[in-house]
């Protein structure tokens, strides 16, 4: 099976068959998108909540809000239907924190959920928070997201 690695602040949008992989999510969030009829899947790896509040805006794939917009735009260009796109999310941990109120993982998850709700994209499943890292595999064929961790086993969502 074709495996595509999605790095930090990257997005892959592909036609089946493929497995999209993102390795070692800490506070970042992985967002999968799936249109089972068009057989197209996408995986985004976002770092920060919002492009609006950032001083560097040149890479929309860094941010939850702008990366989600970009992913959906590319999917529509590739023939997906807006009302068939469904998503799953994982990541957004807080592995360590030095200052109160600086839970960036939680803020990322909130921003992702807010944007998906705003765009009326259903979130079928999620595995977020906690204090541990996650590696994701998104299977475009089935829409299954496999979430792996170092000590908490593997789950399918």
């Amino acid at each position, binding site marked *: 099976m074709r495996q595509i690695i999605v790095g930090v602040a990257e997005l892959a949008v592909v036609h089946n068959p493929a497995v999209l992989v993102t390795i070692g999510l800490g*506070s970042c969030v992985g967002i999968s998108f799936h249109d089972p009829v068009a057989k197209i899947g996408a995986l985004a790896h976002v770092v*920060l909540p919002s492009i609006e509040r950032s001083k560097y805006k040149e890479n929309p794939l860094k941010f939850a809000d702008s990366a989600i917009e970009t992913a959906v735009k590319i999917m529509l260009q590739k023939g997906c239907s807006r009302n068939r796109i469904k998503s799953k999310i994982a990541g957004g941990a807080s592995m*360590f924190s030095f200052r109160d109120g*600086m839970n960036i993982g939680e803020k990322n998850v909130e921003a992702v959920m807010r944007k998906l709700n705003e765009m009326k994209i259903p979130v079928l499943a999620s595995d977020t928070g906690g204090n541990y*890292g996650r590696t994701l595999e998104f299977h475009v064929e089935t829409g299954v997201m496999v979430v792996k961790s*170092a*000590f908490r086993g593997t789950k399918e969502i």
Partner: protein
Amino acid sequence: MDEIKTLTDFQYDALKEVGNIGMGQASTSLSKMMNQPVNISLPYLKLVPLLQLPQLVKNQNPVVGIIQELNGDERGFLLLLLSKESAKHMIKLMLGSAGETDAFDEMEESVLNEMSNIMNGTYISALSNFLGISIGLSIPFQVYDMSDAIVNQIIGLMMHQVNYVLLLKTEFKISSEKIDGAVLIFTDSMSLSIMLDAINRLLGR
């Protein structure tokens, strides 16, 4: 302050030398604690986009990471990385024994934190003293997890402010005890000018 995105060869050499001095003193303090000779590598130093960090810090197995935040004149993070085996060997050397499990108990964690505190504290105070700037360290935070995920969160925390980071990495080894690890300093490119100014001052430039 502006973000610094390139360094001259001269600045690279000077920063490497500063790193070498700091790590030299840190390894001496580790050596005293362990009562064993400690070898250190030449420092690896590179100013890189934050998004390139995952390629530079790769480990197959889960690692013990002890993280401290830098504050004061320099902002960023200091990360001490040890393999599980090295961490267990180190605990054994300090406590006389170490648990056989895949985890670390409270006592073992505090031994590692303490070791990190002493080593990193020596490193950072050597840098501060040598450069005549003031760098502080937060209390240590310990994780045992995928190194990619640790680096991932460091990227997330730094990317609020900058796109570039100075990575200074030095490896250390206690051959007799099969301990090896690395100390990584991630300095935010905004606060880097303070360090560079200090180097220029030292050299009367």
